[in-house]
């Protein structure tokens, strides 16, 4: 049927739905729903890791293969460094920029290496905002409790307390650098309510929060003249005789040369895993989100935490085909947008946590109440025109200019027509285990941002990622820089790699893949020719 004809039910039922309140699930019902429908509980998608620091732990098969993967580096490689630095930051997104700026600010020598350009990251796409408890009726403790509840009580308390308490000073730092957060009439920071939060706590720059923060941080990295190695992908870490991290080896993607960097500390800020397309899901992630930091950390002996749990954002675009997987910001639901099935009914409290909302959308679709596209995808409606009906004409355009433009390019006016959505692979809840200074169990190896784990428990709350990046980027940068003065550069060896390969051999060799992946294999290979063609 014509998409407009199918959308009619959303328009027809709008007024009736506006009078409805949908209660949140009781804890027992919520757990039942998640266990039945959330992709984290599809046991066939998981397997045990055969060796390494997380031996016998389960994770998705796509990640297990990479963690058990072999390095591209030969143990006989000449390790004479091309560059030497105090702090080596790997990754040019929010956490990487924050780490580099804070380390550099204390006077340390800093190199920032990234496999794409400075700033090409998931951070730049963050639309929903950044959770910081600035409102008088809110508090860091409430922020802590909301996050804990959203994370199914599995969050690391120490990391979480640090994040919520550092939040306000992070906001101040960003404002001083010139970030333009939305304000109230009295000049105070405007706060919005996010899914799973009991108080309005989201600081926003319309729906360009990540872009605005990243424009400023990138500019600041350039103004400070921090040394950059762009289009350089980290392919292996270096360690000394004590197993401490002492640098990294990169592959220059322009000329395919290997680049050796000696560093007193290494900060991995390599982001997430969306481009592994776990369980075949489309993703909202950037081109380079291939979990490189997890593989590098794992081989050098760092323990991972919560790597069996991923966030499937409830609202990834399903139509048009060109926008598959692209994020439709949660901000729409924060402002009252309804989720509507093919029968015109609401089926979940739209402001419940992401895992609950995603599970309920999957339930609707699996039970036959979804809307199908000819390309074989299925989804439910997100009633975007409701925002204009509720808050006055022009609301969607004013509050969600990025999203308006994204759909407008394909001839869809989201202020007039609802959009079709289905969960999209969005975030790795876990990652490399870190302490409150962002350091791993491998000395002088720090991990910050999405690549780290523990803080978010089994489900990250909306708006906590941008804050995570800034807080742990800062902490890793300051800690690494503070050490530099009192230590000497350790030896550059590949002993950890030798150990890892020996262990792989004991368990019947590695998975047969080379990791890290660096970029997804989207380039189409030429179809095999048959003999008579």
């Amino acid at each position: 049927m014509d998409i407009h004809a199918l959308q009619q039910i959303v328009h027809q039922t709008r007024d009736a739905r506006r009078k409805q309140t949908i209660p949140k699930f009781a804890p027992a019902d919520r757990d039942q729903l998640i266990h039945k429908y959330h992709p984290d509980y599809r046991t066939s998608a998981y397997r045990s890791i055969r060796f390494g620091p997380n031996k016998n732990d389960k994770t998705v098969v796509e990640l297990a293969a990479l963690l058990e993967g072999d390095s591209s580096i030969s143990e006989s490689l000449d390790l004479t460094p091309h560059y030497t630095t105090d702090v080596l930051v790997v990754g040019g997104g929010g956490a990487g920029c924050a780490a580099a700026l804070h380390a550099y600010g204390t006077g340390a020598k800093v190199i920032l290496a990234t496999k794409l350009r400075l700033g090409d990251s998931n951070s730049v796409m963050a639309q929903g905002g950044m959770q910081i408890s600035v409102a008088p009726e809110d508090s860091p403790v409430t922020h802590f409790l909301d996050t804990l509840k959203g994370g199914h009580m599995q969050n690391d308390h120490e990391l979480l307390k640090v994040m919520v308490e550092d939040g306000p000073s992070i906001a101040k730092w960003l404002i001083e650098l010139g970030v333009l957060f939305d304000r109230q009439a009295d000049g105070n920071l405007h706060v919005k309510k996010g899914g799973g939060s009991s108080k309005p706590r989201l600081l926003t720059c319309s729906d360009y929060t990540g872009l605005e923060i990243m424009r400023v941080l990138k500019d600041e990295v350039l103004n400070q003249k921090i040394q950059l190695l762009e289009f350089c992908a980290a392919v292996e870490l270096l360690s000394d005789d004590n197993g401490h991290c002492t640098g990294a080896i990169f592959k220059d993607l322009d000329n395919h040369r290997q680049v050796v960097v000696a560093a007193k500390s290494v900060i991995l800020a390599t982001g997430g895993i969306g481009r592994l397309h776990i369980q075949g899901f489309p993703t909202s992630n950037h081109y380079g989100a291939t979990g490189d930091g997890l593989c590098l950390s794992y081989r050098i002996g760092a323990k991972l935490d919560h790597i069996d749990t991923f966030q499937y954002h409830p609202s990834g675009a399903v139509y048009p085909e060109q926008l598959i997987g692209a994020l439709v910001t949660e901000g729409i639901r924060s402002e009252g947008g309804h989720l509507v099935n093919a029968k015109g009914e609401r089926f979940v409290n739209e402001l419940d946590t992401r895992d609950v909302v995603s599970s309920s959308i999957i339930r609707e679709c699996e039970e036959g109440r979804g809307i199908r596209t000819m390309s074989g995808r299925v989804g439910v409606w997100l009633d975007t025109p409701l925002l204009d009906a509720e808050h006055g004409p022009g609301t969607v355009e004013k509050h969600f200019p990025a999203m308006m433009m994204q759909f407008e390019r394909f001839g869809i006016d989201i202020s007039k027509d609802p959009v079709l959505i289905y969960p999209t692979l969005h975030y790795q809840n876990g990652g490399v285990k870190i302490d409150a200074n962002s350091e791993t169990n491998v000395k002088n190896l720090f991990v910050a941002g999405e690549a780290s784990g523990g803080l978010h428990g089994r489900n990250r709350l909306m708006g906590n990622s941008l804050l995570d990046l800034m807080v742990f980027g800062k902490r890793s940068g300051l800690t690494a820089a503070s050490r530099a003065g009192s230590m000497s550069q350790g030896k550059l060896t590949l002993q950890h790699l030798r150990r890892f390969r020996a262990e792989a051999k004991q368990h019947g060799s590695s998975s047969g893949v080379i990791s890290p992946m660096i970029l997804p294999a989207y380039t189409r290979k030429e179809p095999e020719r048959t003999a008579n063609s």
Partner: protein
Amino acid sequence: MAQEDTNVIDQPEVLRHKMVTIEISGKKYEVPEGITVIKALWHTGQEVVRGAGCLGGFCGACATYYRTKDDPKVRTCLACQMAVEDGMSFTIMPPFPARKALYDIQSLKDPKQDLFNLYPEAPLCRNCNACTEACPQKIDVREGVWKAVFGDFKSVSEMFMDCVMCGMCTPVCIADIAPNLVALYVSRAQGAHFTEKPQGLDIRIKEIQDGRFKDEWNKVLAMNEQELADHCAKVK
């Protein structure tokens, strides 16, 4: 499970599987109609390293020049946000060597005057409007440059909130202005110097420093798992 057949969206482009002829950097290829420009590159077997970033229309890495069939007008787009059509011709734009001024945003004494030291070419705009036409984000770039020069930093910061820093406005400028970089400076100055300091934020920072939440923390952190879960459930 059963899915009512009535709830299916027709997609002519999916039904037909039509192939179209496009030109990539002057060379002809056949690709499925309607895929994005970036996917067309992958489809033709090209490795993409430079020219792809967030794939969501936010990072500006995939700035592209394109032309549609029989139309002389060369337009701009983001390759991840544009569908290909028959007869289309495109080239991904290589990074343009624009000059970025260096500054310490916090220590500027007179940001509106400093603009002319940092970007002395900014007031030389000759009003050709090419920058506005080149913007894939539909920002009125020319207007923004003039507003910057006349000191209306607030308007510039609002107009350029959509800017993805693709830099397409720069190579077309006959006065050698890099409008996106000018706007970035102006927006940062607006935020750092001309926006009211939020009082509530300073109060909250001081409360945390002074230990206002200490008792509450002690209570919460002393709870066992069950007590904490019950406590969380009560937060409304």
